[in-house]
């Protein structure tokens, strides 16, 4: 069993216990979110010992060099001395400016950040409810077009942060955020490349930001956005997206319903329709956000349909396993 040293605490990890779980068991509060190796809230740094490669897989080369690792998926074979990284995105104070309803279970939260906050639409931030409880939300706003940061927060059954957002957030409240992180955003390196965006539920948030960012930056290639839900109640920003479609000839918007038939809407699952419409994705850039099952299977299908692996940006909205 590996021995973990954190500050003055030294303890042994149990069988199949992650570094995060071990520290939590010791009563040491480490910020964490998804507990699935996605949100990077629980990032730590090894002062001694080498983190297992699996716990560093999705980090940048720079972070790996510094010995950073994700403590929630770190199951070391050897002893480690660990610390919180000094270069984790700083926690910043922000004020809730507006809370608006987008659909039955999704709110748009607008935050004003006091510090100079740089981000690209589609990246995510961590929203902290308290010292140890946070969740990741994607940015739907475009800094050049919008005032403040826009988040689409869906109420999750038993969700500790989403319930707090839905029930307690109100204009004027001070909260803490951390970010921006992630590489799911538009880059203007090839303005003629075709873009395919597929999202379910509040997975529209990053895509709404990316589409408007691309159009604002003068993207010339075809842009196809598929937003899926079971029924009409799960779709939102319909008017705004239809207006964008009117305004830009290269932008097409497809609201899709998988369990309801309505004129003006595509019938079927968004990702199935998207791939059936464009079976050859060679040279396309693909953005996938929302339900993890949809994201993972569509990532594979897009890749098999010819999209280069590095041109597929996927953001699976993992619901936290436990808190």
């Amino acid at each position, binding site marked *: 069993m590996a021995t973990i040293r954190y500050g003055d605490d030294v303890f042994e990890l149990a069988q199949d216990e992650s570094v995060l779980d071990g520290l939590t068991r010791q009563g040491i509060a480490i910020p964490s979110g998804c507990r699935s190796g996605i949100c990077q809230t629980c990032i730590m740094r090894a002062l001694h010992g080498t983190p297992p490669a*699996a716990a560093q*897989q999705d980090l940048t080369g720079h972070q790996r060099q510094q010995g950073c690792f994700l403590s929630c998926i770190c199951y070391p074979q050897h002893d480690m001395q660990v610390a919180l990284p000094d270069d984790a995105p700083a926690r910043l104070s922000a004020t809730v400016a507006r809370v608006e309803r987008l659909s039955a279970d999704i709110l748009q939260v607008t935050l004003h950040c006091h510090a100079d906050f740089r981000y690209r639409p589609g990246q995510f931030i961590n929203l902290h409810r308290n010292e140890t409880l946070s969740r990741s939300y994607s940015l739907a706003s475009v800094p050049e077009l919008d005032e403040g940061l826009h988040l689409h927060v869906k109420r999750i059954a038993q969700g500790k942060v989403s319930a707090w957002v839905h029930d307690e957030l109100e204009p004027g409240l001070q909260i803490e955020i951390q970010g921006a992180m992630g590489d799911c955003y538009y880059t203007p390196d090839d303005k003629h490349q075709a873009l395919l965006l597929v999202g379910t539920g509040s997975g529209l948030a990053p895509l709404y930001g990316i589409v408007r960012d691309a159009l604002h930056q003068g993207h010339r290639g075809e842009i196809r956005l598929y937003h899926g839900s079971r029924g009409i109640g799960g779709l939102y920003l319909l008017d705004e997206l239809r207006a964008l479609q009117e305004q830009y000839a290269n932008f097409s918007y497809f609201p899709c319903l998988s369990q309801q038939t309505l004129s003006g809407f595509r019938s079927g699952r968004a990702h199935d329709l998207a791939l059936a419409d464009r079976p050859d994705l060679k040279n396309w850039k693909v953005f996938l956000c929302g339900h993890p099952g949809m994201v*993972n299977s569509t*990532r*594979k299908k897009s*890749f*098999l349909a010819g999209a*280069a*692996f590095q041109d597929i940006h996927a953001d699976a909205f993992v619901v936290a396993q436990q808190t």
Partner: protein
Amino acid sequence: MTETGKSLYEKIGGEAAVNAAVDIFYRKVLADDRISSFFEGVDMSKQAAKQKAFLTMAFGGPHNYSGLDMRRGHAHLVEKGLNDSHFDAVMENLAATMQELKVPDELIAEAAAIAESTRNDVLGR
């Protein structure tokens, strides 16, 4: 250094060759009905990194795999029935990938020999 003094990895084209090969190879493997079921439900980013490590090794490049790593890494697949026919399928996909990239036949044979050398460890024998 003369052409004959170069390592296999240098002759094939080093990391750039691996990067060119990884999408082609991984797409072939995922699309191959003989073996695609072994990749169901795996995280593609992690899997792509593994494919890259495998190709680096097959191309004679730097790697840290030991025979024991190969055994451990594939033990759960051997339990699911991984056998010689599946290994053969991967070998075919590897050769087809290099042919597509116009790697000369003698270098393909060298890379295939390196990959072949892992067979018993991969299959847990």
